[in-house]
């Protein structure tokens, strides 16, 4: 229409440009490819692109300005759009509640680690114990993986290194272990008790029910989904199933010391609302960092 053309012409004279469909077409495609290569789930990519497109369309951005020395500086409209994407990613992934949720009032805060096989639960349980012990908290670990060969031994070794007690009873099943471990934590005045559970497939009904049973027996302040940063499209199926079964309060994204882009962080957030709380940055028990959305957003956008 006349007014639109007139307005945009006036904008151009002043060094502004409106973000419109054709300007965004190509960069939207590039962002989509980048997110897919970063292992963000297909449906989540679609949703994210639609969201930022709606946000960006019609935005008037500055494409020509003068810097402090009076020299003309140009910024392409596409670059403005990439910044809008980056900021949106950060906003989405930023946790409303960083770190652990601590129990208000008496009694130990209970944290349960859950996730697929090999994602880093046992190691992360040790890392959390290390972090909070160093902050002066009294911590206890519960060895509730009774299936994997030497899983209990693995947690005991970590406990010994940290001088943190590991609750374990030969022959006892996970729901009882968690219930009695919690009781032991209460009796010994612990501030934090962490349940290490066995890796499991979301399609394993019996093992998913086991998590439900643990939840029935003990109030869980934090159920942390431990996710390998290298995970692909399966992140959504996995996160949804764990969330539906037992409720996920937060995520620990492990093995970020590698070069996996970590798109799972966005996927999990979009389908469960759970944010990454901690990042696993190595095998050592000190290699755990509080989550920084800014850093991961850049890594995912690539």
């Amino acid at each position, binding site marked *: 229409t006349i007014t639109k053309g007139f307005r945009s012409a006036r904008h151009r004279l002043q060094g502004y440009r409106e973000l419109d469909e054709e300007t965004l077409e190509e960069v939207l495609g590039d962002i989509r*490819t980048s997110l*897919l*290569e*970063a*292992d963000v*789930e*297909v449906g989540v990519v679609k949703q994210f692109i639609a969201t930022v497109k709606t946000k960006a369309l019609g935005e008037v951005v500055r494409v020509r300005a003068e810097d402090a020395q009076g020299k003309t500086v140009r910024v392409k409209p596409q670059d403005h759009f990439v910044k809008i994407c980056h900021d949106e990613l950060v906003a989405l992934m930023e946790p409303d509640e960083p770190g652990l949720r601590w129990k208000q009032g008496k009694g130990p805060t209970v944290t349960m680690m859950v996730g*697929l*096989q*090999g*994602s*880093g639960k046992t190691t992360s349980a040790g890392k959390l114990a290390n972090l909070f012990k160093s902050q002066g908290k009294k911590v206890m670990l519960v060895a509730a993986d009774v*299936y*994997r*060969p*030497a*899983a209990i*031994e*693995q947690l*005991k*070794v*970590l406990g010994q*290194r940290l001088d943190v007690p590991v609750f374990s009873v030969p022959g006892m099943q996970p729901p009882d272990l968690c219930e009695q471990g919690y009781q032991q934590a209460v009796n010994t005045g612990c501030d934090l008790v962490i349940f290490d559970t066995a890796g499991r*497939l*979301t*399609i394993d009904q019996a093992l998913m029910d086991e998590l439900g049973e643990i939840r029935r027996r003990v109030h869980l302040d934090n159920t942390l989904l431990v996710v*390998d*940063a*290298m*995970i*692909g*499209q*399966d992140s959504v*199926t*996995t996160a949804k199933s764990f969330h539906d079964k037992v409720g996920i309060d937060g995520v620990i994204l492990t*093995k970020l*010391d*590698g*070069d*996996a*882009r970590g*798109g799972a962080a966005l996927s999990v957030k979009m389908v469960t609302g759970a944010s990454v709380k901690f990042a696993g940055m190595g*095998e050592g028990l000190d290699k755990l960092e509080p989550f920084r959305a800014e850093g991961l957003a850049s890594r995912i956008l690539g």
Partner: protein
Amino acid sequence: LFAGKQIDESLYEEIEEVLLRADLGVKTTHELLQSLKDASSRKELANPAHVWKTLREKTQQLLDKVGQAPVVTRVAQGPAVIMVVGVNGSGKTTSIGKLAHRYSKEGHKVLVAAADTFRAAAVDQLEVWCQRADVPIHRGKENADPASVCFAAIERAKAEGFDLVILDTAGRLHTNQGLMEELSKCARVSAKALPGAPHETLLVLDATMGQNAVKQAELFRESVPVTGIVLTKLDGTAKGGVVLAIASGIGLPVKLIGVGEKMSDLRDFDAALFVEELFD
């Protein structure tokens, strides 16, 4: 899937989504789509059903191109040596338990080497598997140099008449140069103990992994002579489509798949079955 009566953009969009969701990745997905569109423009595709059938064939071709040599379990001189490598938590130790069981049942005299001298309870874990498979384990001192454990195990195998040695190594990220060099050293030192060793180097990949698996395959192959892939955790919901990107980009074949946590949950890779499951 065959509701649309014509080959149009929405069919290609549907195909793209299926391939991306299976973790084939952007590059391999677009290569397959392009080859379908070329076939269509040459009037080779009659209807959507034909498109899906052709897609299955082209996908299988990617796998057939890399061939399928069986795992080396017999060599002319001395024990056959199989080295197992991969990133942390992919399923190496468990897969070795399964392999030891299989080859022992097939009549081999198997020795397993506990060359992961780093991770908490790694040797204990492997020990349980060796007990289950009724196969001896060779272990070194705690925190010993992994290469020395490989060397000693092969020497022992030669001396005691084992015909198959399987080396378990520590998980490591391909981006860690120091650890990748450590792995190269294990291979070099194994060759010192027995020229030609390791005769088979299996890269263990987790089927839930996304595009990073391609980088893993590239970099592990730069450090050690990877000859095949073990694709684990295929009993889950992930499709493991990244092995197609690896087949087309790097040329590594999948030789075995892990389909569970029990000793018997190991199968030979069947390309036709894999493709069928991919589009299921």
